């Protein structure tokens, strides 16, 4: 295989990384959790993934595919089918809105707005699940999960940013 061909494959792999990760997380229901003093905590990886990529490079994740990932996530996690799609799409709306309004992007600004975004999404999620479906969900656990997702946002943002830089380097080298 020629060097150019290898490079092309590598670039397309890097470009489709967010999509591969999104479907991997949706299909496996992969929930990163950790223990602190024998209490288990988890965070929502998909929220960070969608928010970051819609904010920075919206053409990497298609809205239709995000909708599909939501449906898959609902089936795997045993939620009413369609609820995760609504959550993800609301997150997309907020991210797209922030993108339209932002002139000088900064991590701190994104981080605070991400908190507002996940609070809105969690509220919608909780309201639909409890009021419409009488789904047994604990408000405290949902809020803890949202807060941990908010705390982890900068770390994953740095990681995604690194992938962005690798992609740019490869494209420049071409």
């Amino acid at each position, binding site marked *: 295989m020629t060097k150019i061909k290898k490079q092309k494959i590598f670039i397309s792999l890097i470009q489709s990384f967010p999509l591969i990760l999104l479907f*991997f997380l949706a299909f496996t*229901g992969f929930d990163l959790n950790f223990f602190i003093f024998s209490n288990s905590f*988890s965070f929502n990886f998909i929220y960070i993934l969608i928010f970051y990529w819609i904010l920075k490079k919206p*053409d990497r994740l298609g*809205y239709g595919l995000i*909708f599909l990932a939501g*449906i898959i996530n609902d089936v795997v*996690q045993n939620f009413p089918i369609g609820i995760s799609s609504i959550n993800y799409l609301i997150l997309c*709306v907020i991210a797209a809105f922030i993108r339209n309004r932002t002139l000088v992007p900064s991590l701190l600004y994104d981080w605070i707005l991400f908190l507002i975004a996940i609070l809105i999404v969690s509220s919608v999620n909780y309201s639909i699940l409890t009021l419409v479906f009488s789904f047994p969900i604990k408000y405290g656990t949902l809020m803890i999960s949202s807060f941990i997702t908010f705390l982890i946002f900068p770390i994953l943002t740095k990681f995604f940013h690194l992938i962005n830089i690798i992609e740019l380097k490869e494209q420049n080298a071409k």
Partner: protein
Amino acid sequence: MASDSGRDDFIIAIRSAFLKKGNRQKFSLFTLIVISILVLSLEYFKSGPVDKFRSITKDLIFKGSFFISTPFVYINKNYYKLKDHLEMYEEYKLLKQKNYNLESLSNENKFYKTEIKKLNNLIAEENIYSKNYLLSKVLLDQQSPYLKSVIINKGFKHGIKLGVAVKDKSYFVGKIVNVNVFTSRILLASDLNSKIPVIIEPSGINAILSGKGNNNFAELEYLPKNNNLKNGDVVYTSGVDGIIASAIPIGKVFINEENKYVEFFVDLNQLQFVKINY
């Protein structure tokens, strides 16, 4: 004037976020949110063609999920294998200390079984639960602090019914909460939403076993105020709900300060094959 233009910018940004498709987007967010709401409203149809379609979709997604998770399941299985291997010597020492007399225990068990049969005949008690069971393979293991459930490769085509008990060997694991054509979902006894009616022996106290999101133990709720539970008392399903069969052993009581917990007999992290009453 300035506030008017600011408001216009705000409205334009919202409209653009909802309706603009972007370079490679086929649908606007507004269209997809409307479709999501329509899909969500289909949840109200619990029977008929919509339900059948939903079951088939779930089956397909579970199969896809099973294939994608295969490498991780393999790693997980080997991790527990290694852990068991490393702990083998400690376990051997513990078993040696306990010095079980299996033959005498087996005879005692036979005696109690005959005694129960006689007593049941005396009070004309009929066993309403089927003794038939299906052996099923665990396809997916959904374990997070908020969801403790597993997917198995048997559905209503194989005669699985909603709500029935699931066992690993002869111990209680959980109950069926969702049945599709070829797959079903088991809600483990450790799940936050799991509530199982139980009886604690030898005192004969009834209670509810409530999952705590931890795969090692669950909590006993609705106990009488003056109960005399002791560490090591055995907890069984009581069968008062009329769906879960009675007398399936679940675990042993352990008391921690004010709270009473049940340590499961089964390691819920390592389920591979389960038995389902049908």
